[in-house]
């Protein structure tokens, strides 16, 4: 680690300053993570007493459960489609805002707003907008009765939570794409313009390639976020239904752990999700060059 040339030598004070965070990290991160590991390999006896070591049995139960694979499948579909949607829209908007035509500041300003909206609030808003019998999209049903009903139709429900999630992630992606575009030296695009390449040509040949690191960073962040932070949206819009059509991995951990009170099964599932997050984060650190932009 690059340190300072001038340092203080009071080791006690140094320890005292970092202790609060270390205590918090130990109590609320490492200990629970360790406990999840322990629980996932043990079972609580029905009549109390010490947990008993059962090896891989919890994982076997989880992996042999078709309901678990159902939730994995839905989570993957949900994560991939909301990532593609959110990043695609954000990229197009950022590229065109970066053209800096008159009025671009107004767009840039308002595109941020959705980021501030809490996931359950997004969920409730979308639940109303996409309700089958009221709201905005219900007009579809008037035109063709029964074509849209997320409360009954699983596919509609998945579309609903995907749209809600993508909507709430566009702003974040937009900010990063725009920051990435603004860090491309103006002289580069100017030189290309002098050489006669048009706007779209410059976008394709200069801006997109130079955005690659930002793009890759965002892919990882979006996937992780969709796998991990989707609880608020699902809980309010569909509560995992109809018929488990939107039973995402996070939601299943919550319902198995807190509603089913099966800590061992929930812990085994948590561990799988943890491995997923760790590998995604690892990919990010390993392959994505960290780029800090100062705007």
């Amino acid at each position, binding site marked *: *680690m690059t*340190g*300072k040339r*001038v*340092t203080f*030598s009071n080791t006690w*004070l*140094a320890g005292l*300053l*970092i202790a*609060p*965070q*270390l205590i*918090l990290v130990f*109590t*609320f991160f490492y*200990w*629970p*993570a360790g*406990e999840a590991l322990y*629980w996932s390999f043990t079972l609580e006896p029905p009549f109390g007493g010490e947990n008993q070591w059962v090896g891989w049995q919890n994982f076997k139960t989880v992996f042999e459960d078709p309901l678990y694979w159902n939730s994995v499948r839905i989570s993957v579909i949900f994560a991939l489609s909301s990532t593609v949607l959110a990043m695609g*829209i954000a990229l197009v908007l950022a590229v*065109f805002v970066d053209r800096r*035509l008159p*009025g*671009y500041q107004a*767009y840039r300003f*308002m*595109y*941020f707003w*959705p*980021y501030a*909206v*809490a*996931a*359950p*609030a997004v969920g*409730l*808003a979308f639940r*109303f907008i996409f309700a089958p*019998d009221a*709201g*905005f999209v219900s*007009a579809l049903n*008037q035109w063709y009765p029964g074509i849209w009903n997320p409360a009954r139709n699983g596919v509609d429900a998945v579309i609903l939570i995907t749209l809600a999630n993508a*909507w709430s992630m566009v702003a974040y992606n937009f*900010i990063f794409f725009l*920051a990435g575009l603004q860090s491309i030296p103006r002289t580069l695009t100017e030189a290309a*313009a002098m050489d006669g390449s048009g*706007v*779209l040509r410059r976008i394709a040949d200069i801006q997109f390639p130079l955005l690659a690191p930002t793009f890759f*960073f965002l892919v990882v962040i979006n996937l992780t976020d969709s796998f*991990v*932070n989707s609880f608020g949206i699902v809980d*309010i819009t569909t509560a995992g239904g109809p018929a488990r059509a939107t039973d995402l991995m996070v939601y299943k951990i919550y319902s198995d752990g807190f509603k089913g009170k099966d800590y061992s099964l929930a812990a085994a599932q*948590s561990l799988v999700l*943890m491995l997923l997050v760790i590998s995604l*984060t690892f990919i990010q650190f390993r392959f994505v060059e960290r780029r800090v932009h*100062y*705007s």
Partner: protein
Amino acid sequence: MVERTPILNILTHLILLTGLIMLLVPLWIVFVASTHDFRTVNTVPMTLWPGNQMIENYTLAWNQSGFGPKMLNSFIVAIGVTAGKIAIAAISAYSIVYFNYRFRSLFFWMIFVTLMLPLEVRIVPTYAVAANVLRPYQELLDLVGLTSLVNTVAGIRLALPEWSMLNSYTGLILPLIATATGTFLYRQFYLTVPDELAEAAKMDGAGPLRFFWDVLLPLSKTNMAALGTIMFVYAWNQYLWPLLIVTDIANYGTAVMQLQRIVPGPLFGEPPRWHIAMAGTLMVMTPPLLVVIFMQRWFVRGLVSTDK
């Protein structure tokens, strides 16, 4: 730039406008729905123009769900978490950057690795810890044999008291305060501070605390604002954690939690009072929205420079 591209310019404006509509129409619909009466809000197709029931709806939503104390709780939690994160990030990074001791890289990595352990993947055991915070330490004591040692030597059972954080502000705030991103941001900032400042401070006889308080903290105001805005939004929008640890909703419920209770629909066998639900939604989303709007510059800088 240099060329004239009238058609592409029109297209650009069209695309940007479409984007704006996509991103803002949901908010507009929430607002419009919150200003109509029960009958209008359930009419298909819905009107896109505000009605005149705004004050009635908001008053009803506010009183019915007891939004007053809940908003207050949300403010207490959001400000507590924000202040806590900034404070703890500033001092931990100070310890890592400005002191030279053996374990500082290890400590930094220990904090940084928590990025890979979001709340959702350790939710059940974290809840268990919050229900009895000192249990990890009790089990550690048992594990290293200190408990049995004290028991044989002094005949006392070494038992730490039970401390539950359920239904308390401490429980809502403390587990969210540890911050890898904040520590990283502050570390980066300290590394850009010229060494001459510390040298000069030392020469003038200032100790480490004095230097931290009088020199570094004032210099880090920009950092603080950036970190503060994103953390306020993060903390206000917390949902899963409060939902778990608060059962005493009358006293400790937060505004965002309340959303779960105002979902209308046939699910609870009551008429779909969407106008009240949307009024509640808009009230809950307003404070962080205002923070983002008014602190835009700091907010963007905070978001981009922490890179999660």
